[in-house]
């Protein structure tokens, strides 16, 4: 890393003959790894957590897609599924957890509460109206709570988005 300070290796690679091919195949390999191995942070807040558990259980078995390892430590999580109601007392904790996760990290807002505050938008003095006010969200899965199929569908959509990534367009140092 030290050698590369201030120098973006990507521009060098692209100037090489066949650099494009190299980058494309690199992209393919990286994206295949990332998209097929999304470990989740075990982070259930409310009702949606139960459907998240159901998605992990036999009937729906999200291990099939590589979401197998529910990681209790944010250090090993790739995505945070915010499953449930976020209230103001929880805000600093969610922010800390997000910052503790290593890059690249993804956030899935599961259910109405995480998207917008859900049924508690009005008349609740503690609600946070959508987790996007705290952390950047990649995928929204509507429902109250969403069915496990909906969760799986959302996660597969996330995989598709990851497959569209390229080191070429990623910010320097974060590819």
């Amino acid at each position: 890393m030290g050698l590369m300070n201030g120098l973006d290796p990507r521009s060098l690679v692209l100037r090489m003959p066949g650099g494009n091919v190299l980058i494309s195949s690199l992209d393919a390999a990286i994206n295949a790894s990332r998209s097929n191995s999304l470990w989740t942070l075990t982070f259930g807040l409310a009702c949606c957590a139960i459907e998240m558990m159901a998605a992990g259980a036999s009937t729906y078995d999200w291990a099939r897609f590589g979401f197998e390892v529910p990681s209790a430590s944010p250090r090993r999580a790739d995505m945070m599924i915010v499953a449930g109601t976020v209230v103001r007392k929880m805000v600093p904790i969610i922010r800390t957890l997000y910052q503790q996760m290593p890059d690249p990290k993804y956030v899935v807002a599961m259910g109405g509460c995480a998207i917008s505050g859900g049924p508690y938008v009005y008349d609740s003095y503690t609600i946070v109206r959508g987790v996007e006010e705290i952390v950047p969200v990649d995928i929204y899965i509507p429902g109250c709570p969403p069915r496990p199929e909906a969760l799986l569908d959302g996660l597969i959509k996330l995989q598709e988005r990851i497959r569209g990534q390229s080191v070429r367009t990623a910010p320097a140092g974060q590819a």
Partner: protein
Amino acid sequence: MGHFLYDLFYRTDVLLDAWRTAAHQSWAMRGWPVVILDVLFQLGWAAAAAVFLAVNALFIIWFERKLAARIQIRRGPNRVGPWGILQTLADTGKMLIKEDIIPDAADRGVFKAAPLMVLASTFLLFVVLPFGRGLVPADLNVGLLYFLAIGGLSVIGILAGGWASNNKYSLMGGMRSAAQIVSYEVPAVLTVLSIALLAGSLKLGDIVRAQPAFGYILLQPVGFLLFLTASNAEINRGPFDLPESDSELVSGFVTEYSAMRFAIFFLAEYTNLFLAGAFAATLFLGGWRGPLLPPVAWFLIKSYFVVFLLIWIRWTFPRLRVDHLMAFSWKVLLPLALANLFITAVLVKVL
């Protein structure tokens, strides 16, 4: 050609010896120092062991996932590659390119060294592991002792990792692990001693050769169970997986580890699983010996069978409590192992 293949698979020791002698002669004829050749030979072994270690871990993790899924009436990974066999590869690839976090409060040097210490202790065990007749980097005279001594080394890495993370959960995980490995080392040693008594040697090759066709398991059924339990506890797997128990200590000593450093711990853990199976196979199931199939195949079949047993156990039982775990070792396993050793000694003397 067929002759060569036969030699390669069934008489590997003869082939290797012949090859080594020939190489030695030719180096000596040219006046080159033979020491370099020996070093090269050992480096070759090391490379082979490293490749095996990686491939084996990839396979064993997939195997465990699929088997666990089978036990739990679900499918397990099936999207990456046929039957999801490349799932582990995807996981490894992802961890390689993930951000590597070292907490601010951590002891950086120790934090970085800890995973390597654990991996090194596992890697070193391959030195004495006989994969087949003569297929062993160094069949030491004190092979059994070496296995016990080096096998206990991983505790240093675990303790270092737990301490360096500067996290209470990590520290508690590390401490538990240290206590656990040290306590279960004792019954393991005593059990292995009775094998040494029977075989009359500490050399693993000799122990395999000394076994009757059915292995020592029939002479030492209690010993086998003791060894299986103790080694299961030593590799920190369920139901003895307290150092990294999810529900109590988040992830124990690996709580603060991310990306590749965690992957190394993971690699070491699954290599240890294989080694537990391999040594159980070597000491109790007759190692590489068996009819028809080549020795290597027999060795792998037996090892993976024990691994299968360990996985089965892990996915069936709840976790022990930490004091029960200690009590189990000192109050149950140790007296049993002592009694087993005593009876073995008497029988060996009498018969």
